[in-house]
């Protein structure tokens, strides 16, 4: 569920194709996200799941899987 929403946001905001957004994809090195992309994606996740992600989330994730994990931890907290 978290991955599906994350994938949807990456596709919408970064104009990526469906098969590019995989769990192992590297957000910055591979998908070429920048700070503006991340601010939109994190805001989209926060609003959708009604959570507050840590301020340093961007600095602490490399892959989509990392981001999904941080979102799940926030939901569980």
């Amino acid at each position: 569920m978290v991955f599906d929403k994350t994938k949807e946001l990456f596709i919408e905001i970064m104009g990526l194709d469906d098969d590019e957004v995989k769990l192992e994809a590297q957000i910055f090195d591979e998908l070429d996200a920048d700070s503006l992309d991340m601010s939109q994606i994190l805001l989209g996740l926060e609003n959708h799941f009604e959570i507050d992600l840590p301020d340093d989330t961007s600095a602490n994730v490399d892959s989509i899987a990392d981001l999904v994990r941080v979102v799940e931890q926030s939901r569980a907290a």
Partner: protein
Amino acid sequence: MREKIVITGLGCITPIGHNIESFWEACLKGEKGFGPITHFDGTKVKTSLVAEVKDFDPTKLLGRKLSRRLDRFSQFAVHAAREAHDHADLTDVESTRIGICIGTGVGGVSSFEEEASKMETQGSSYVNPLCMPKWIPNMAAGNIAMDLKIHGPVHTVSTACASGIDAIGHAILLLESGRVDAVLAGGAEACITPTMIAGFENMGALSAQSDKNLASIPFDERRNGFVLGEGAAVLVIETLSSAQRRGANILAEIAGYGSSSDAYHLTAPHPEAEGDIRAINMAMKDADIEPKDVDYINAHGTATPQNDKTESKCFKAVFGQELNQVHINSTKSMVGHMQGAAGALETVVCVQTLLEGKIHPTSGSTQIDPDFGLTIVGQDFIEKKCKYVLNNALGFGGHNAVLILKSGLVADSH
């Protein structure tokens, strides 16, 4: 002696054509690019006709990601700038010696309105982080720089409806200062939004006509206001020495620029056109010409009762008896009022007029107000070889801006 400034490239996107060729062809046919509102629910406003740019796909221009990051006015600017840059074949000018100066009235106002609405209805956490870089008015110029990798001075001019001409004027000053060799100068606007239309409506400036042939009919005794338009126009202007060094195709010379303020009223022009008269005289002095030398005027011609009356007074005061020899039209009769882009597009029209010896019609203006005493080009284009042409613009805030272009440099420079 001051260095001559020339025009070497043109680009545009308008309600009647997405490039110079299609725009000019539609101009000569007198096509009126007006239709119902499609950008939003048109029942929100009383106005029934706008001049939208049709069939524009920003993802084709910029890709999916980048097109989301640019407001429509920036997308238009990039589109027009690419055409002008290619037309001038500017790749052989060093990128730090190229500047950009783009005029806009309101910048990315549609992005701002969208986010302001989210702020009200959903709350602050729903406001898009892209809100700021999309709507701030300098982003048309900034995005052109990023798109074309231009590293010289990149500026924005905002003098309401005079922005397009004043942006070119500012570019002239940059060129004359020696800081740059070429400038991409023009204007961009995309402000067909509910709030903009409501504001203009409540001011009584917009045409309430639903018949497009009776809307935006400048200098006609039945004139009833303007039709809000959108689009962009960009010109490459450069020093004559730069153009000659690289063997560029010189389209026209910019002979003079005039700029003044009425310092009179928020929106109304000075009743005796005092400021506009000074701006035209300043431009003629700059060009070292007299009223008898001007062959054609592209008027501001908004089709509001007040503008056309005051502008005609201005022309009578400046040109006197010589006015009989001057043909006048208004491009706004076809593309509506493109606000901060209008003056730039009308400068493009002036260049085309010089190059082709054709003056486009004032579409729909079939009953010219006889009190004006103006020679308005009617429903068919006319052929006239022009040497000097004048472009006039006025803006809310009392801004007056005038350019005079000259033909003949093609012959002179070879």
